[in-house]
């Protein structure tokens, strides 16, 4: 296999608890810590391991985002990606648009495999991998917890509600990484220095000829309903009593 494409989305760090703006127009993102979507780190780690086993020649990291997403791509390069592509957009894109872009790039690059995250932890849509697979006309293996490449095919174990499902797909294909696929490596300082010299191409979204509008409008953003304040019980007897009173045990 020659080439693996990996999605690298810039998202609010998973430790940040976001606040909704009082006017309902969105969430306050000014000055908030941004990171690589954790599932994309897992996707990239898997691509790197496939390459290190000698089963792929090149790993390319792709992000669709603002100029600042170059930071996340540099992180991907420091982890070990060979090069990076930033498709520059000013506004957040819908998963369908992100999928059109990723499909264009997969075709242009002649990718043999695309590995994305199971979901991005900001919008939690979990749509992009199946959408790219559909638009590209290729197999999908979502929620992957084990990937085995056998030449022109791959065997993937998937985390499904009934347990673990195994499927076999012809390559090229699109996979989405689940939590148990691997543990991503830590970036070391010398790698950060090296990453500065690796190629990072910036492509204008408009140059791809991809339709930007999907017609979905966000009309309001609100915080979730708060839970009523609870009590701390002093011991097990009080707890069991309280639950019995509510008819719960």
């Amino acid at each position, binding site marked *: 296999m020659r080439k693996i494409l990996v999605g690298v989305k810039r998202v609010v760090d*998973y430790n940040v608890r*976001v606040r909704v703006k009082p006017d309902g127009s*969105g*969430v306050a993102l000014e000055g908030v810590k941004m990171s690589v979507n954790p*599932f994309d780190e897992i996707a990239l780690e898997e691509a790197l391991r496939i390459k290190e086993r000698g089963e792929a020649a090149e790993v390319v990291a792709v992000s669709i985002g603002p100029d600042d997403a170059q930071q996340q791509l540099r992180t991907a390069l420091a982890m070990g990606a060979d090069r990076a592509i930033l498709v520059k957009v000013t506004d957040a894109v819908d*998963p*369908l648009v992100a*999928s059109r872009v990723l499909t264009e790039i997969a075709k242009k690059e002649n990718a043999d495999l695309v590995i994305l995250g199971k*979901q991005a*932890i*900001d919008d*939690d849509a*979990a*749509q*992009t991998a*199946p*959408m790219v697979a*559909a638009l590209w006309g290729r*197999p*999908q*293996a*979502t*929620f992957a917890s084990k990937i085995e490449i056998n030449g022109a095919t791959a065997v993937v174990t998937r985390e*499904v*509600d*009934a*347990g*673990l499902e*195994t*499927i*076999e*797909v012809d390559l090229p294909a699109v996979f989405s990484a*689940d*939590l*148990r696929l691997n543990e991503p490596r830590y970036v070391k300082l010398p790698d950060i220095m090296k990453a500065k010299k690796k190629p990072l191409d910036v492509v204008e979204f408009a140059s791809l000829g991809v339709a930007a509008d*999907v*017609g*979905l*409008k*966000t*009309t*309001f*953003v*609100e*915080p*979730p309903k708060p*839970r*009523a304040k*609870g*009590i*701390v019980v002093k*011991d*097990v*007897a009080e*707890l*069991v009593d*309280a*639950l019995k009173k509510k008819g*719960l*045990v």
Partner: protein
Amino acid sequence: MSKILIVAEHDGTTLNQATARAVTCARQIPAAHVTVAVFAADPAAVAAAAAALVGVDAVVTVAHAANASPLAATLAPQVVALASGYTHVFAASTAFGKDLLPRVAALLGVPQISDAMAVVGAYSFKRPTYAGNAIVTLEAPADRTLVATVRSASFEPAAQGGSAPISAATVTADLPTHTRFVGLSASPKSDRPDLASAAKVVSGGRALASKENFNIVYSLAGKMGAAVGASRAAVDAGYASNELQVGQTGKIIAPDLYVAVGISGAIQHLTGIKDAKTIVAINKDPEAPIFEVADFGLVADLFVAVPEIEKALG
């Protein structure tokens, strides 16, 4: 009128309760006509179960040998072929629905609304983002098929007692052979209730410290007639199997009672339990964030408290 097609989820014989919850969501759309589609090798039993749901107007079956395993790549073109003539295509937001529907949406060239949690109008829904910390209202154009997955925890299952007509449909679609089912390693079946739909759930976290110790959670759940859940840390460590993970990237549940044992209450975990009616937390750290959402908090060592609770329950 909205004509809604719901893709049934099943294991070949039993209709998943998540589909009955999607029916409830569909019924909240004004003037809805609700059809459940059963794709299977032999759809009879599942179709009968779907027809018995109150609120279902029709059941269509698509029998095909390739539908013996739930592969998105083979199902999606069939759903697309069936979708013409419908205004909405729904499925539950389960592993099955999350795998299938985005592929359907992309083939139809339309966006998808993931995890619909409230119906605002026929083309407007609320959904959670940022681990449930921002609820977004989305509006889709009325001149295109609306594709959505339905968040199970937000809707009660439709009641039994319906008698919708069942008809067989044939769809013309090219079924790809590039994706092949190899096998399912199902977690051992137990008499315990199913995590996704259980009225009571007992979950264990990293504090359990070993697979053997996790039996404390199973034992309490058994006593209470509860399903078992786990935090990501407990699943990652191998104390519990993957489908038991509760949270933003696991299962989102809404039981009447949720008991968190040795779980700190990270935002990713809390997303999964926010809709539980009563939350009980047992943690030895009084500062643990789980206490912020708990209706009843017990600051105690779980290895002492949990056996005591079991004893108190008799």
